[in-house]
């Protein structure tokens, strides 16, 4: 009898602990990984997209709506990266907490300096993203800015857990700074080299480490390479030394491999998010792996 009572008591403790957890939904796994570090046991976090998928076009599943309905907080990358898939999901989830203008909708792009913002948006170039390049989190120096914003937001929504969030955040930043010094040191030797990338996804990273971008394999963002464009790239390749072609995991790599083979350049497949390759298990190992793949001779 006593045992049963204890079991029942423990059950209620668990249930109440569970109920107090903040339900956080993130659009991408890298955000979920940061939230896990800072929120720890006070939050339940669920990323919608898979790290292997093309972040611009996510195929919706019924569970997405279920998660969004339960969410207290929805953290997005912003800068229009989710524009192609998230708005109808938010609308259908009908959760006032996370709707536009709600307390629980949190856009991380507001906390970093975006690049490639078009001057005077003209329609001549089609649908350029007016907010700039949305792939800012691939510069590891931007991660502390995002982590800081997430910590403040969690404290806001859940004051009871604030001291925990601050403590976890301090630990995270400490660990991050140590790793950042190592990554910066390892990447010094890439300064001044030139690369080609498939999509303009690693621009923030390249800029940070002084790597020159000679061109993209795709003709325009989201438009597969045409023969004329490849020809122009090849002319550039003849007059300058390109060290690597950077390929993401979700776009077809045929054109990149063709160029790499023909001009004897190394084609490197880089993860762009947690889970994009097996080694990138969390936000730390994502950058470990990017650095390893770039510096591994």
């Amino acid at each position: 009898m006593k045992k049963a009572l204890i079991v029942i008591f423990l059950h209620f403790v668990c249930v109440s602990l569970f109920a107090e957890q903040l339900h956080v939904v993130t659009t991408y796994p890298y955000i979920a990984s940061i939230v896990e570090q800072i929120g720890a046991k006070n939050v339940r976090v669920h990323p919608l997209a898979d790290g292997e998928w093309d972040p611009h076009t996510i195929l919706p599943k019924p569970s997405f709506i279920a998660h969004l309905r339960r969410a207290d907080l929805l953290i997005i990358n912003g800068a229009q990266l989710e524009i192609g898939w998230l708005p109808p999901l938010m609308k259908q989830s009908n959760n006032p907490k996370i709707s536009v203008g709600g307390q629980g909708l949190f856009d991380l792009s507001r906390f970093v300096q975006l690049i490639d913002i078009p001057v005077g948006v003209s329609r001549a170039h089609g649908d350029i993203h007016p907010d700039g390049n949305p792939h800012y989190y691939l510069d590891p120096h931007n991660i502390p800015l995002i982590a800081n914003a997430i910590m403040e937001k969690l404290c806001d929504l859940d004051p009871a857990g604030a001291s925990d969030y601050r403590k976890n955040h301090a630990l995270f930043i400490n660990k991050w700074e140590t790793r950042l010094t190592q990554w910066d040191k390892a990447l010094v030797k890439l300064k001044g080299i030139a690369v080609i990338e498939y999509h303009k996804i690693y621009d923030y990273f390249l800029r940070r480490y002084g790597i020159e971008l000679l061109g993209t394999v795709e003709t325009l963002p989201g438009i597969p390479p045409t023969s004329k464009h490849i020809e122009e790239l090849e002319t550039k390749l003849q007059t300058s030394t390109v060290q690597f072609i950077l390929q993401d995991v979700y776009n077809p790599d045929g054109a990149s491999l063709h160029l790499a083979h023909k001009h004897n350049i190394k084609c490197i497949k880089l993860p762009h998010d947690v889970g994009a390759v097996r080694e990138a298990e969390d936000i730390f190992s994502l950058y470990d792996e990017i650095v390893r793949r770039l510096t591994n001779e």
Partner: protein
Amino acid sequence: MSDILLTAFLVSAVLLSINSYFGLEIIRRGIIFTDLAIGQMAALGAGLSLFFLEGEYLYPISLSLSLLAGLIIAVASRRSNNVEAFIGLMYAFGLSGVYILLSKSYHGMEKFQNLMAADILFTPLEEILRTAILYAVLGVILIVMHRKAKGVMRDLLFFITFSITVTSAVKLAGVLIVFSLLVAPALISTTIRKGIPIVNALIIGIFLNMIAISVSYYLDFPTGYTIVFVNSFAALIASAFSQKAKSGDTVKC
């Protein structure tokens, strides 16, 4: 969650109502891919509007192009012996046209796919209601005119109502779902010798969609593709195991 499943189910039921008739009719006429060709021409219209007019007049341009496609197919199906080849090429023409147009626009393809490949999970109820009313009106016109019209007039009427149906259906659920809902239940109903084919097609379609939507929910599969998969799989099985109709037997409508 049940409301989401209900929406998906309502969309498929509304689509099935009129498409059971059209499905049987296009199988009988041997012009199965008409729907894909008309749908693709509607898409080309959307592409034209996006590229030249920044998305203005999207629906009227789509509808005009699909009506034009419907009329051309109506004429061709009376004149040409190779009407399926003709319809297939019209599909290819529309598809390649869209790709060429949007290859000159940043993220144009993403925007286009958003507009055209609507997801059955997100259809608002008002949209479903509006489509249901449209189909009811078209249905009445079809029933009344079917008796009166003859020959060329009857063909024209068929292709015009079909073009309007396809354009609105594609907007509601996407090209692939419309195609599978149109053809699969109708094809299965042709293997059944009892009852009225159009009623059979409707019942079969509703049953298959209930299965597909439940599977998609419990196994967390993308809903649209699950509907296409279940419908086409059932039709393949039914066709494989049914006895071939005797020559001279034709599909009744």
